[in-house]
Structure formats: structure tokens, C-alpha cells
């Protein structure tokens, strides 16, 4: 992928756990280790949604996290891209018969990139981030 001029800064991601089993978290941490080293492209996890371009969500949305997720989403500056990592956020996954879920992530906030897998491999997560980057460029009006 060729970086366009419109992408003039690093891509920062904020990771949000909305009730995941920690499997996806382990893979996200694996994706930012020196083995893949996405930070050489400026892709890194940040500690607050106010600094982030991409919201990385793992897990189905549990009842108590729904309000928090909406608040975190509202705190992110435009343009923003939402990434749903793992099968749970897409279709419930292993929590398919739970009584405590508020539907898949895309019924709570709009999702741009889906990364399926239980858990997805780090390569898949990085691929998803690249897709998010492309989308962000499109939103910003670059990449023509």
C-alpha cells in the first residue's frame, strides 16, 4: 500500500475491551511486539481515546460496558475508524447464549473493519489496521 500525502501523521489506536475473554488482548499485544513491530510505521496503542484515530474493540458488548463504549466512541476526534477484533464482537462467539450481552458491536456503534477469528492472528489484526488506514485516508479525502 502506498501512503498518500493526506496521511501526514502516525496512526494511533485505542484498545477497548467490551467483555472479551482476553484471548484477543493477548493477540493484540502479540501484534505490537518487536516481531511485527508496527510502531516503525507509527502504529501504536495509546492510553486515551482522545488521541486515537482507530478504536479497536474486542469482545461482545456486555450490558455494563455499553454506556462506556458509547462514551469512549464520542470522545474520539473525527475522522475515526472502528475496528472489531474477534468473533465475539461480530456474532457472539463462545458467548452465543449469554443473557448479559447488548448485541454485536455494530448494533451499538458503527463498525468499519471486522477481523474475524477466535482469536485472530496478529497478522490478521495488522491487516485490519491497514484496512482501517485505507478507510481513514478515504474519509480524509486522500488516496484519489
Amino acid at each position: 500500500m502506498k501512503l498518500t500525502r493526506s496521511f501526514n501523521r502516525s496512526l494511533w489506536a485505542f484498545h477497548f475491551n467490551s467483555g472479551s475473554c482476553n484471548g484477543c488482548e493477548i493477540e493484540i499485544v502479540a501484534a505490537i511486539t518487536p516481531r511485527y513491530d508496527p510502531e516503525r510505521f507509527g502504529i501504536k496503542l495509546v492510553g486515551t481515546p482522545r488521541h486515537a484515530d482507530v478504536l479497536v474493540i474486542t469482545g461482545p458488548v456486555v450490558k455494563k460496558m455499553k454506556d462506556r463504549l458509547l462514551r469512549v466512541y464520542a470522545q474520539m476526534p473525527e475522522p475515526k475508524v472502528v475496528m472489531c477484533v474477534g468473533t465475539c464482537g461480530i456474532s457472539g462467539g463462545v458467548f452465543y447464549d449469554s443473557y448479559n450481552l447488548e448485541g454485536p458491536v455494530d448494533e451499538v456503534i458503527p463498525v468499519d473493519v471486522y477481523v474475524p477469528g477466535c482469536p485472530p492472528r496478529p497478522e490478521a489484526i495488522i491487516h485490519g489496521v491497514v484496512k482501517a488506514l485505507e478507510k481513514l485516508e478515504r474519509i480524509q479525502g486522500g488516496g484519489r
Partner: protein
Amino acid sequence: MRNGRLTPEEVVERFTERLGADILETRVQERREGIKKNPNYNIWIDLNRDALKPAIEALIEIHYPHLSVIAGSDLGETIRLLYHFTIYYGTPAGEYTVTLAVDLPKGDLTIPTISDLIPGAVFTEREKQEFFGITVLDIPDGRRLFLPEDFPQGVYPWRKDETGVPDSMVNKLWASKRPTDRPAPPAEEKEACELETGEEVEKPGSTGVEEEPK
């Protein structure tokens, strides 16, 4: 006695002497762990409900116990609570797990609190209250712990009877945005094949060779 510690059999004896007929069943399980195959002992003790607190007092006298968790399972007629303890905690390869099991009939789901003996137990007791509908008598804090505030009363998620979670409470995530207008798959489902001896294994290979020239 090894280094002032009781053997697992002596631990069991201590309980049977103290509580007599209230002990319903005891079992000592030995497992080997590590390259050196160090023995690891699990002690299982089934009790009457009234003997639970004396049993924990007896356990405290043996050694400072570490309560892992109170586990529970719905067995149909009864709910079985398992108090998982470890004694001789911190002794390398010398810890015993002691599990005290109590059966509660569904008609009378009450159990005395053990949080006066082990204050930290109040959290796991609160969890058992909300997930099984058990009443822990004299619990200092009987609020809900994990379930949301608007969770309906009288629904206990870990119960397997009619007080369990009804299907209407399950938000079917897998059905969300699933297309309903797709045609049925053209191929019918294959019947489960029955494996016969010898012949069945050869067939796929021989037919494959014949078909290839076409």
C-alpha cells in the same frame, strides 16, 4: 508428620474425630507433579450443612487456610457447594487442597456465612447468592456483585431448572443482520456413513485412480 506437618490421612482423621457422624464421605487423592513426581494431595470431605463452620474452624487450627473460591453446581434435586481451600500454603510441593462439600436441598437453600471466620469469603458468598438463589445467613453484605442492577428477581443464571435464564433473555448475537432470504443449499446433507472393515478404506483410492484419466 513431616516438618511438623500432618499427613493427608492425619488431616482426614482430625476431621472425622472432631465431627464424627457429620462427615459423610472422605477421599484422599494423590497426584504426581513435575519432573521429580512430587506427590500432591487433594482431600475431599463431604459434610452435613451444620458441620461446615466447625469443619472450617478445625481447618484453621491445622494451618492458616487459603480459600480459593466457593464453587457450586446444580445437581437437580440439590445444589452442591464446594469450599476449595489450600493448607500449608507457600510450602513448595507440600500444599494440600482441602475441599469441603455441602449438599443443599432445593427446598431449603440456606447456608451459614463463613465471613466471620474468613472475611474475604463475603465476595464469593455474594456471588453464590445471586447466581444460585442461595440465602447466606448473617452475611454482612448481601448486595449483588456481578449481575446488573436491572437484572430480574428470581432468575438465577447457574440454575438448570425453571429458575434458570429463560430463552427470552438471551440476545441472539449470531442472528443479528443474518440474511433470511437465502435459498436452501442445493446439496442435501450426506447420510452418516457406516465404516465397514477393510473394504471401505480401499474404495476412495481405487475410484480416484480410475477417474483421473477422464
